[in-house]
Structures are given as structure tokens and as C-alpha cells.
């Protein structure tokens, strides 16, 4: 098997950062987490990421939630963007914007199973798109107070239905932490090729001075890292498909931890707002060099004690 070598500035060329995810070779295991890397910034991250993953797209344009949309908390932040996006048609028209020489994954969300399927049908024939990630977990888009895809039943239904049109392309199911083990098993059984864990965790910030709720939204950042690591670890024990880890990565050691916990690739979200992904990759490469390991060996490098 030939693995592409990343040519990362400042990184030892002899460190092998390549990984394979559902048959797709990634030059590095880093992937931007959905919704945290804009087109405007693509130039900055050349050589850092192994794949591209734009913000979740929905069937129709979404205006998003009124401001404020972000708030800071201990070791993290809360966001309530409300999936602002231009909608599927405009997204497809501008797909070439993401041509940066990397496999392109797309994240999709919808209100109904039918809409999920309709979107997957559109992507099925898109040569540019290497894989589809189903966002089954956005905590900011609510339907009568309940999240879409709260339980394994819905996960199974959506994944199985999307599996059909996407027969040729890898399908990832992105899950929330709540009920993650059961949902991951359901996703695998329904035909998902990988599971992405975890999305933000429902949270709330209060302004005690104004005595108001400042923001209800999803918690991300280092605060959720131990929770995400647990999800990746537990799920890796019970599913056979690859796990893509996400939650609180801000350093190269964090990347290594997710891969040791069982992740085949690692997404970086809010961490990229406060540090450079490039630096994280360099730290990760340094970790591999020091430990004499290749990126793709890490998932099996956890030792019992």
C-alpha cells in the first residue's frame, strides 16, 4: 500500500502522516470540523489537512440565528449559528471553490429523511465529492424541542435511506454524544462507512449581571475533549467501521490522543480559532518522530496496563 506523504513545512519528511479512511488516502489525519473552516481561509491551511470539509449544507438556504451567536466559557465556547448556509443549489454551483487538491467531503443536514436522501442523490453523481457526512446531531436546529435524530431508530432510518443513492461513496454519520454507543452501532448496521464523534454538547450561558440567558447552543473546545475521547474509545470497541474523532483538539498531542483512543482521522474545530492547525500538525509529527510511529499505526498503539 502506498500512502501519500504530506509535505508539511517545518515537518520532518520522514514522519509518515498518511492515513487511510474508507479507502481514501489522506496525506494527514487532520480534517477541518464541519462549520469551522471558511473558503476564505483555505489558502492558510495548505498541506495541513488531509481532506476538505465545508460547513453543513441544507436543502434550502438558511439565514441562521440572530446574534449573539457565540459566547466564551471555561476552556471552550458555545455557538448557536443555526446552520447559516446558502443552500444546496448555490453550494453546488460554487463547488470548485474547494478545489485545493484534497479529497472533498461534504456535510449535509435536513429536516426529513426524504430531504436527506434527495441531497445525497445530488452528491452521488458529483465527482468532486469523495464522501458525505450526515450531520445527525446539530443541537441548534430544534424541532419542537427535540433534536433531530435523537435515537438509534432515526439514525438507522436516515443512514439506511442515504446509503442507497450513495452506493459508490463513503458515508459518514456524525453523531452527538448523547446515546453515542447505541447510535454508532445503529449507524454501522444501517451501512455507514464511518462514524464522526462528537458534535457540540447542548449548553447554556447566563449573564448574571443582566440576569438573562446569553446563549443556548453547543459547547465545543477543550472542555469537551475528555467526553469526546471517551465516546471515540467506547465506540471503537464495539463498531468495525472507522471512527473520526472530534472535540477539543488544540494540539498535536490531542491529535495523538484521539488516534490512540481509536480514531482513524481527527477533525479540528474551535481549536483552529485559537491556535494554528499548522502548529498542531507539527506537534503531531514531532510526537510520531519521538515515538517512532507512523500516523496510521496509532490506532493500534494503545497498550494495556
Amino acid at each position, binding site marked *: 500500500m502506498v500512502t501519500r506523504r504530506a509535505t508539511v513545512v517545518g515537518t520532518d519528511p520522514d514522519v509518515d502522516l498518511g492515513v487511510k479512511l474508507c479507502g481514501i488516502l489522506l496525506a494527514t489525519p487532520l480534517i477541518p470540523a464541519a462549520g469551522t473552516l471558511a473558503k476564505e*481561509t483555505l489558502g492558510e491551511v495548505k498541506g495541513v489537512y488531509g481532506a476538505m470539509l465545508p*460547513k453543513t449544507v441544507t436543502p434550502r438556504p438558511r439565514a441562521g440565528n440572530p446574534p449573539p451567536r*457565540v459566547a*466564551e466559557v471555561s*476552556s471552550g465556547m458555545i455557538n448557536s*449559528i443555526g446552520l447559516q448556509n446558502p443552500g444546496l443549489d448555490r453550494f453546488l454551483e460554487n463547488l470548485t471553490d474547494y478545489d485545493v487538491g484534497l479529497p472533498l467531503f461534504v456535510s449535509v443536514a435536513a429536516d426529513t429523511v426524504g430531504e436527506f436522501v434527495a441531497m445525497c442523490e445530488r452528491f452521488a453523481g458529483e465527482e468532486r465529492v469523495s464522501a458525505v457526512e450526515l450531520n445527525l446531531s446539530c443541537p441548534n436546529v430544534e424541532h419542537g424541542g427535540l433534536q433531530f435524530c435523537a435515537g438509534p431508530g432515526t439514525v438507522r432510518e436516515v443512514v439506511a435511506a442515504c446509503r442507497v443513492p450513495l452506493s459508490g461513496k463513503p458515508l459518514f454519520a456524525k453523531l452527538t454524544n448523547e446515546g453515542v454507543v447505541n447510535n454508532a452501532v445503529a449507524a454501522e448496521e444501517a451501512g455507514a462507512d464511518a462514524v464522526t464523534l462528537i458534535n457540540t454538547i447542548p449548553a447554556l450561558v447566563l449573564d448574571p449581571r443582566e440576569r438573562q440567558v446569553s446563549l443556548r447552543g453547543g459547547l465545543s473546545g*477543550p472542555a469537551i475533549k475528555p467526553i469526546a475521547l471517551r465516546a471515540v474509545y467506547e465506540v471503537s470497541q464495539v463498531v468495525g467501521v472507522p471512527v473520526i474523532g472530534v472535540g477539543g483538539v488544540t494540539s498535536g498531542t490531542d491529535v495523538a490522543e484521539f488516534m490512540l483512543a481509536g480514531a482513524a482521522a481527527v477533525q479540528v474545530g474551535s481549536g483552529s*480559532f485559537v491556535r494554528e492547525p499548522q502548529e498542531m500538525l507539527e506537534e503531531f509529527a514531532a510526537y510520531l518522530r519521538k515515538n517512532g510511529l507512523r500516523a496510521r499505526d496509532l490506532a493500534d498503539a494503545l497498550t494495556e496496563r
Partner: protein
Amino acid sequence: MKLHTVEVLQRERFGDHALLRYRWTGSPPEPGQFVMARVASSTSPTRSLDPFLPRPLFAHDYDGEAMRLLFEIRGRGTALLAGEGTELLVSDPLGRGYTIDGGPVALVGGGVWVSPLKLLARHLARSGVAHDVYLEIPAAAPEAYAAWISGSYPDATLVPTGGASDASRAVLESIGDLSRYAGLYASGPAPMLDAVKRVSRDTIPSQLAVRERMACANGSCYGCAVPVWEAGERAYTRACVEGPVFPGEVLAW
């Protein structure tokens, strides 16, 4: 977000306000642009991420070698930035600032939001655009700050005011006939921006610096939503890349 460690040249405090000067040899700021700033404890082996997010602050002034930030100390982030003994990390200048066209123009500012007008005045002068500066000095502002402001903007008309909504009116009234001007550049508290936007609608074009909470400051997170008119429809745009300066008529407040 790429942050550079920079050398702090000067730290000054005026009551609840602080001025920070650091060596900057990167790309020069346009007036109305901002930087993301945070501290890193210089004793920390791994940089602390507490507080988690860097803070957005306008480029107050730049002389080709040193950048100045002027800010109010509100919470932990700004308190740490104003403090001694820490390393300063800053981004490149970010966003879209004020556009300089013909003159004469009026600059209207209030509170600590006067910050970007200093660099704007410098650029206008450099471009030979005639301009007058009108600044609100709230009665509640610490004396040291008021003194510093009048020293820092020697040609400005200073308008001492009481409260925030009153302020906007007083400052605008002190301008008198707006038709003398080809444009209004504003940076101030929300009621002032509102008032400027309102008067400019029927008279002369305005450019307003807005402030929204930010996380990524590079267009990625859609956290800094500002309502604007887009092809006749109300839509949210991103203050960090499409702003923070917007033409008054674009804002859909």
C-alpha cells in the same frame, strides 16, 4: 488563527482604559481594521488557553513601527491584556476598514469606540482629505482618560455628555449642518451608530464600525453575524470579513 508574539513597548492605564503599544513590522493596518489579541503567560511551557478566545480590538494607531491598541477593561481578557508581565500575541490586521474617498468628511466617535478614528484621521491627513473630528467624552469617564483623549486628538471637538442616548444627539448636534460634508465616519456606542445611520440616510453617506462577538475572526464560524440588506433581503453577514466597517445604508438594524 495565526497569532504572532510581539514585543510590548508601552502599557498605560487611564482608569478603566488601557493603551498598549507593540512593535509591528507585519502588514500595516488600514483604518477600521482590528486585531485579535491574547496574552500568554511567559512562564507557561504550553500556552494557556484561559481565557479561551482572543479578543478583537481596533487598530488605534500605527506609525510604521509600532501598533497602538486602546481599550476599555471589561472582563478577564482585557484585564489580562492590560496587565504586566505577560507575553502579547496578536493577529495580523483583519477585516475591512473605512474606505477613503473625497472630502471634507466628519469623524464621529464616542466612548472607547473612538479608537479606530485616530488611524483614520492619520490616513485622511496623509491623503489630503479635509476632516473634522467630533468626540463624545462621557461625564462618567475617568479624568485621566478624558485628558488623554483631548491630548491624543488635539484638533477634535470634544462634546462632554451625560448618558449614552443623550450622547449621540449632543454629538450630532455639535456638528451642525451636515451638508458641509461629503461623508460621515462613525465609531461609537450603539445609540450613536443608530443616530448616525438615521441622519445619514437622507443626507450624506456614512461608514460605521460595528462590534459583534467574534470567535474565529477569519470568516469561518459565522459567529459575528450582522444583519444587512442583500439584494433587498435582510441577511446576516460576517463582521470579521465583510466588516467591521459597513456603509450605513447596508446595515439592517
